[in-house]
């Protein structure tokens, strides 16, 4: 069985390195500040004992007040998993850092979120629409897009 790591345990490991960057840990979730997401992610990827070498999935949810970007991380080495979340605010240009330089598998998924949810990924090498055409107005997966 893939062991779902407890968010609190991982938070305890991260806290000394990145004080104040974890907002909440609940179940196997970890909610982190978007400013420190990239540093935290690279730590999670390389830290011995964590080794999250595999980014299973990225997606985003529109909660009206904020967007939540959800990362499902897996370690093939240890067969455990963790869910990392971050929030970004504002509907004009919400932005979170890109993790493509850590996990190349993020490439198309971040483009998909950009296309359909309208969240920009800072540092993405080729951020453009993926399914819809350039010039399409709006981002269909937002809750206010009808």
């Amino acid at each position, binding site marked *: 069985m*893939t062991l779902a790591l407890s968010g609190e345990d991982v938070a305890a490991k991260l806290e000394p390195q990145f004080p104040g960057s974890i907002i909440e840990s609940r179940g196997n979730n970890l909610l982190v500040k978007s400013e420190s997401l990239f540093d935290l992610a690279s730590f999670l990827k390389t830290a011995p004992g964590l080794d999250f070498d595999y980014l299973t999935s990225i997606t985003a949810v529109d909660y009206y007040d904020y967007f939540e970007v959800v990362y499902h991380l897996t370690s093939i080495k240890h067969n455990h998993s963790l869910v990392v979340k971050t929030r970004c605010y504002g509907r004009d240009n919400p932005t979170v850092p890109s993790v493509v330089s850590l996990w190349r*598998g993020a490439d*198309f998924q971040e483009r998909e979120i950009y296309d359909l949810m309208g969240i920009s990924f800072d540092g993405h090498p080729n951020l453009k629409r993926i399914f819809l055409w350039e010039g399409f107005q709006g981002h269909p997966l937002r809750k206010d897009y009808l």
Partner: protein
Amino acid sequence: MAIKTEPFVINIGPVHPSTHGVFRMRATLDGEVILDMEPVFGYLHRGIEKLAEGRTYTQNIPFTDRLDYLASMSNNLAYVMAVEKLAGISIPERAEYLRVIMAELQRIASHLIGVGAFLNDCGAFMTPFLYMFREREKILDLFEMVCGQRLTYNYMRIGGVSQDIPEEFLPALDKFVRQMPSFIDEYDQLLAENEILLARAKGVGILPKELAISISASGPVLRGSGVKWDIRKADPYSVYDRFQFDIPIGSTGDTYDRYWVRIQEMRQSVRIIKQAMEQLPPGEVLTEVPHSLHPPVGEVYGHIEAPRGELGFYLVSDNSIAPYRFHVRPPTLINLTALRDMMIGWKIADAVIIFGSIDICLAEVDR
């Protein structure tokens, strides 16, 4: 005097026999050699995620059939399992076994298409493809017996499966699993050591192990590169922990290894089906689930090993009758991330088979 040359761009697709649907490869070439390649898709985007947010959990099952339509049973399974996890529903044991049988039959059917189409791309036009269709036809007959459909099955339900198998199903399945290994032997005889296939596929389009993990590849693409990772073993769902089977892996990560892994997986699927038939318990196949199901507030990520890789559903519930968010983790879209790396430096004729070896379904890529 040296001849002045410059790279030029050609579009392979969106409508092209080797793109398996509507897909475009924008290739930059130097003569025949590929310098750069950009995949372009979205031609089949139907907005299924958005549509699903406006329909009830049960109404969304037919949508999942239309994601990867070559593996509808697997899509059904991944979705209903995610909903059951979200709502905390347990299902009868007989239904679990029927689901496993259907999912493994579906894996064989899907790999038959994958391998057949790959061989088409290699230039063995239609002959192996029709050999494979011969067996796939039998699987479709079996599916037709249980649900009346041959492509979009809509067989699984939240809480089990829509109906029990008819009387004639098990004898027909038994006949199939006894025949299938000899058919796979026949493919091996024709293909495994075939000189032309080896020359075309061996060493072509190599995906190194580290890169395969980095790009989040899954399914035969990941295992072809030598990573022993199969959700059925790594994170067993349903009743997969009760069966014995192996995970075939490749050694070099070339197109031939991906082909080989698919052939071996069919043998393993037959093994699983045989065991499931022996253990199949009697009883109900569907638990009672409220008509308007509204799961408690929360979220869930459910995943299975679909024929093409890790198929996941991320669902968020706000306690209403429709999912607040319905996200599909599409294995083939993510596997396509590797396409550019695998193609650069190869000739355009190789591009076709490298692409074919990923075995994509555009309906799932674009959703």
